[in-house]
């Protein structure tokens, strides 16, 4: 049996149409060269820029292509912060490390970092957020949807509050793209100034991302040399990956995909609950593809390894960093006990997954849990 892939929030397989679009450009010219080889590459990048912009409700000139979500977040925070007088930078306590570590690094430039807590369901406490803005704040970053829990934040409301305080609002939308509707123009009216996205979470290639930004912002490059992307991101364009990003955006079917994964997740979570599992953020608005859960007294690492052997690829916490076995900081921020958080497993689906796979998974999960309980009984 082929392995069943349930880890789309970590990286999603390349759609074959995306690969077909990329193939001619795997051997393309340097987009900055003036001859015909270079011109073809330039046109391909421009087309992709339109495709990505369109899927985000943005204008092509509002896009800077980057090497991925992490660089987009770094550019969004450091690039906007560079031309602001350091004051307070406000982030949620559940940000992806690409935002959290960047915000921490900005302390060296004189910024005061303030993390706003979340409630038990993973949602930013709006009252605390509002209160935190009483301190002069230059920059705010709150993610659109959490990579681990899938919990969707009320970005529009927070951006409006930030706007009243004249703070620039950035949102990491890496997990939101493709899984929920995103319209930058509309978000921008509410006060969102910049938004980060990545290709490889939506069936595009690894190695491409973008920052969408309001051109009224005084954005400054963080990577210098060559003047590409209107001086906002030096370095030869990764043409094939950018083309793939554009192609992946052009074939997104957000609504359809969300409905499909929602149906699967209903069945999945019903099964997990019946097996005694706890689902994190269950009553909050979540991305319909994501389920983050744990079983009391069951070690997450052991469980995912057992599931991998049974042919199911799932994640234990976020697949983003290192070999750290610490419990998920996102769950700790939600007030989950460390022992339970240690057991967390994430299933993230996409349109290609089937009901049969979910049913097979529940069987495998049941089997793995029983086996682990037996072993625990023997050990005791």
């Amino acid at each position, binding site marked *: 049996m082929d392995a069943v892939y349930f*880890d789309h929030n*970590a990286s999603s397989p390349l759609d*074959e149409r995306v690969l077909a679009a990329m193939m001619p450009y795997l051997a393309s010219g340097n987009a900055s060269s003036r*001859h015909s080889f270079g011109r073809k590459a330039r046109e391909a990048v421009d087309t992709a820029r339109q495709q990505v912009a369109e899927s985000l409700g943005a204008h092509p000139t509002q896009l800077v292509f980057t090497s991925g979500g992490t660089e987009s977040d770094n550019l969004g925070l450091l690039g906007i912060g560079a031309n602001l007088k350091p004051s307070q930078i406000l982030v949620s306590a559940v940000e992806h490390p690409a935002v959290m570590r960047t915000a921490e690094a900005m302390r060296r430039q004189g910024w005061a970092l303030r993390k706003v807590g979340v409630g038990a369901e993973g949602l930013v406490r709006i009252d605390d957020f509002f209160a935190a803005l009483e301190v002069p704040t230059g920059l705010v970053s709150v993610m659109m949807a959490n990579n681990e829990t899938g919990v969707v934040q009320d970005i529009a409301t927070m951006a409006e509050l930030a706007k009243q305080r004249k703070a620039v609002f950035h949102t990491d939308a890496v997990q939101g793209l493709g899984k929920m509707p995103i319209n930058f123009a509309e978000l921008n009216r509410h006060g969102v100034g910049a938004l980060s996205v990545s290709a490889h979470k939506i069936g595009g290639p690894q190695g491409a991302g973008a920052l969408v930004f309001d051109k009224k912002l005084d954005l400054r490059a963080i990577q210098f040399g060559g*003047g590409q992307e209107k001086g906002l991101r030096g370095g030869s364009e990764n043409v094939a990956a950018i083309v793939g990003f554009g192609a992946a955006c052009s074939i997104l079917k957000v609504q359809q995909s969300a409905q499909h994964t929602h149906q699967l997740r209903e069945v999945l979570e019903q099964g997990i609950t019946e097996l005694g599992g706890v689902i994190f953020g269950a009553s909050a608005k979540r991305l319909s593809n994501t389920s983050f859960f744990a079983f009391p007294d069951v070690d997450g690492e052991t469980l995912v390894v057992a599931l991998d052997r049974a042919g199911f*690829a799932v994640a*234990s916490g976020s697949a983003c960093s290192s070999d750290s076995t610490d419990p998920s900081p996102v769950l700790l921020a939600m007030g989950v006990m460390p022992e339970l958080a240690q057991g967390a497993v994430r299933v993230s689906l996409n349109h290609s997954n089937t009901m049969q796979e979910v049913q097979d998974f529940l069987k495998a999960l049941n089997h793995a849990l029983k086996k682990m309980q037996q072993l625990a009984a023997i050990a005791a």
Partner: protein
Amino acid sequence: MSKTPIYLDYSATTPVDKRVAEAMIPYLTEKFGNPASRSHSFGWEADDAVENAREQVAALVNADSKEIVWTSGATESNNLAIKGAANFYAASKGKHIITVMTEHKAVIDPVRELERQGFEATFLEPEPNGLVDIAKFKAALRPDTVLASVMLVNNEIGVIQDIEAIGNLCRANGTIFHVDAAQATGKVEINLEKLPVDLMSFSAHKTYGPKGIGALYVRRKPRVRLEAQMHGGGHERGFRSGTLPTHQIVGMGEAFRIAKDEMALENARIRRLRDKLLAGLSEIEEVYVNGDLKQRVPHNLNISFNYVEGESLIMAVKDIAVSSGSACTSASLEPSYVLRALGRSDELAHSSIRFSIGRYTTEEDVDYTIDLLKTKIEKLRELSPLWEMFQEGIDISKVEWAAH
């Protein structure tokens, strides 16, 4: 007859070698995992591929694979090396930086950025042949020189700097030494076990690998520290966060493996072609080779055609894909800053062409190019009032030109 346009711009970018593309494709399709995923075989498989490629890259430059940090390309490598080292060591060593006027923008621009942050930079002027005078470099070193950055092979004129001598001076002075080797891999031998270099930048797409991937060599013995420039999940031992693009990394590894295996033979073939091109073009009157011819990679020929203007020249030779100056600056009409640093007049800098020869260049391509240049230069000179004046024996440098 050769198929036009003929590609002679291998220093801007190289096509991906078929073998490289074949190695990459499985990692775009069935082996698509995120190498940071520790919980399933998709992730482990990707991680194995990433580590194998790291070995391949390290092998080409005789380094330890633990000394290789993946980046999105040489520009990012240069930014990380220069800003990362300068910021890390500034407090203990000082805030003076030495680099060279002919460096790539990906070195110059980060150094300029550091100047804005309060560092002081010396931009050394190279000799007219493009090489750095070692005595002048030595004289520029100061007790507070925290970092020096000198490229191994120049992107426009192909000259090879004496990295070993410069590195030894840096060592003696306690200065971190960074080398941009984007244009050097597969063209010159690099032995980092011997070379006194602390940081070295690499790019895949100048060596028949894909775009969007590069690496930075960070020496472990003695250990070189950097302040990270890209913050996040702590990938690459904290030097550089961000999901690793597995297929591109695999491509870079394979490209560097091929370079290691084939560079000796390939460079001999390319040298023959370059020498033939040089001999052919030298039959044209009033041509000037830019940069030292001996201490130079065989792939590069940079020539100025006097009394013809650069842009019309590029238009005239549209059947060959070449650069006038570096690909990164050719959207602007400024004459090449590299050639100006060599002391070339604006006119000669304007009328320069960089021919860069590579893996797929044929003898027919070179013959065609020589014929094309001969015909077109003659036509343009017929049009040129400067050529007419030269023929009449007027010294153009003495003419007083009306302000414009």
